[in-house]
């Protein structure tokens, strides 16, 4: 069985020794204790597990660790710097854009990935990114407000 011995996560080189076929989600959560990334479906259908892989929002549940061995992985844990929230986190907090909050890390990572590439996204671009993210509390209206706030900030 092919194994993997190192991952680049949140700016660090992390040694590990595990089966390269395991999902990135599982390795982040179970081996590295980075539990901010959530399991929602394990099948690529909900985007709760979204992380950035070389800056691109990626569903970690359907990504094997082996396939990202040489790439830079960013998780929700690395967004806030020295206790200062990332503007997207700030926007979610300001708008109270969470009910149970379980979907929120994935939403935030998806949006961060989009805004990093497209600071001035069109509504269609926002929808096409965010429509993959499920929120079962159906807190979509406040999340939309948070997205607008974050996008406005990214523009300015």
């Amino acid at each position, binding site marked *: 069985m092919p194994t993997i011995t190192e991952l680049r996560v949140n700016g660090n080189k992390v040694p590990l020794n595990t089966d390269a076929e395991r999902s990135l989600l599982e390795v982040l959560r179970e081996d590295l204790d980075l*539990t901010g990334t959530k399991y929602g479906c394990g099948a690529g259908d909900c985007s709760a597990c979204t992380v950035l892989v070389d800056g691109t929002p990626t569903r970690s549940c359907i990504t094997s660790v082996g396939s990202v061995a040489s790439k830079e992985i960013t998780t929700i844990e690395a967004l806030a710097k020295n206790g200062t929230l990332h503007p997207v986190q700030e926007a979610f907090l300001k708008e109270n854009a969470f009910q149970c909050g379980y979907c929120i890390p994935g939403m935030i990572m998806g949006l961060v990935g989009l805004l990093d590439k497209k600071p001035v996204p069109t509504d269609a671009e926002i929808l096409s990114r965010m429509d993959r993210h499920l929120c079962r509390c159906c807190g979509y209206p406040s999340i939309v407000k948070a997205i607008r706030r974050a996008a406005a900030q990214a523009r300015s």
Partner: protein
Amino acid sequence: METNPINCPAEILEDEQIIEPVAFEFGLNRRVFVQMIGAGVLITASAKPALAQRSGRGSGGARPRNVSARIHIGKDGIVKVMTGKVEVGQGSRAELTQGAAEELRVLPSQIQLVMSDTGLVPDDGNTAGSRSTPATLPAIRQAAAAARSLLVAFAAQQWGVEQDTVQVRDGRVTHAATQRTLAYADLAQSDELAKLFNQPAPAEAPITPLQDWKVLGTSVPRPNGRDLVTGTHRFSSDIKRPDLLRGKILRAPSFGAKLVSIDLAPARAMKEVVVVQDGQFVGVAAPSTARAEEALDAIAKTAKWESAPHPSSQEVFAYLRDGVQGGLPKNPFADELSSANKVLRQTYHAAYVQHAPMETRSAVAEWRDGHLTVWTGTQNPFGYLGELTRTFRLPPERVRVIVPDTGGGFGGKHTGEAAVEAARLAQAANRPVSLKWTREEEFTWACFRPAALIEAEAALDVKGAIASWHFVNVNSGQSAINTPYRAGKARSESASPRAPLRHGSYRALASTANNFARECFMDELAAAAGADPLEFRLAHLENGRLRDVLEAAAKRFNWRERIKQKRPDMGVGLACGTEKGSYVAACAEIAFDRTQNKINVRHVCEVFECGAIINPDNLRAQVEGCIIMGLGPALREVSRFEGGKILNASFRGYQVPRFSDLPELDIHLLNRPDLPSVGGGETPIIAIAPAIGNAFFAATGIRLRSLPMVPPAAKA
């Protein structure tokens, strides 16, 4: 160990406050408690707050008298408030914090709410049925008010002044005339005060009247919001323990299937894998989920099962109808029917659906020195505790259930299977075990919202008034079954056949189905009477809260104008309803896309009233969530099954609402400061489906009487 699915406690369907009684007394001893909570003064829960609401029905036997500490003021001045309620996204953490802050005259940020750790908190009952607001909030306020009055009495006594000359503000007790002041933290240093606090609090301390509210009634944000946006909040499946293993449970290939034989050897041969068989229960634990899956796959291949017959979702309504002992109840109003001007009779259906909370059922279990601790997501921590003590035959003081704020419940997380499963594995492994259900397991083995078959029959007199009303719900229960409309004679009844799927309460229980059928039927009656749907309803409603929300919604939506506009394939509809003491009305505009055979909900105006509003932003979020969540079962969601298997046990096959489903929303919260507050996390869901159905009729002339409402062309 018995792992066959049983229905969630039957009473939950009827009356969610009632949970399985646990006939024992327990509690951590005071020393241990103080170790955990820190030094300071403690006030015990006063006068059985949450228990008083349980009027004994079904709960036979005494409730546990558990640790009853309610409020603790630390020597550091931090106020801890203990509650058995759970935060599942409905916002109780903010609201209960507000209640304590208001009465203790401190900022919400000075309160730490300790929720649902059975080792620390009083039993506030199941978190369900919108009971947190009407029952637990007053209990917490009462205890906080009592604490405040004790602090005042104590300070007054120390200073030798009259109590009514002492003021409390911002966590300080002050005597203005002599300019003396003491912070709560100072007071908490006093051993004498500690003694005073150690008695049960006086129940009669006055709570803050509404006109003086400073914290209640305002939009206090979620106290732990920052933990949610940074991903640092640990949900139960995020809990890390030393030497933690990951568990997997063998599931039957179909409902009702019995395990005949299995060879455990392949898994036993794997390094670091623990295998457990206990009757029908088979599970494995391993250092990683992948490893556990591998082990489970290896033995699952060897399992022999004996399957049981099970109806398909296609035939489920016939199955339910046939299952009613003695047949469906007959309409008792034969005279009214024979003398009626018009008689209308219709049948409505609601499919089985899943709650599908974003966080699947999960638990971490750990045994140490014969004590069991579980972290799990549940709406019912003390009920779980009972389940665990029974299953493992443990005295209650050896079990502790801790419920971290949980990733959604929607009425679906009342039973403790994940915790029991994790605990059984952890017992065998002698190491802590984390167990997380997969989405497929969640779609298959969690409680369903019960399917409903509803028959409605009504007679109209010559004036178009309802002369008789007969309403029968098969399978989904009684919530909101009684009609709020005036009728010459009315009977509403329910029948419970043997159910093919394990079901439990859904957001607002059976009222989603009952209100759908009733409000669609009212529309049909209005049409039969040649009346406008709004006027027909108003003509049958007394003055009161339901009428108020209906009129308010119609006005905001401009109903009387919009119903007249005729545009091809577009229509407006309305519906209203009441449940659990709150009132809702919705108007909706839909457009029917014939090419895609799709109903697009374009605009929803909803007015909701649940007494005095505790936290407007949170209530608005609940109402929004209800409306959008309600779009799912209204238009798309249905659990399909055949041969005892769920055919669409994934978010791909089972389509829940998304961003792109968002209609334009106009939500109005009708504040009634003169009325007691009740919960708002459920009832706002009950008006949306019938409003859409009625709008579809206005657009097309076609009645859709089954949830989900799929236009006929796509049915074939």
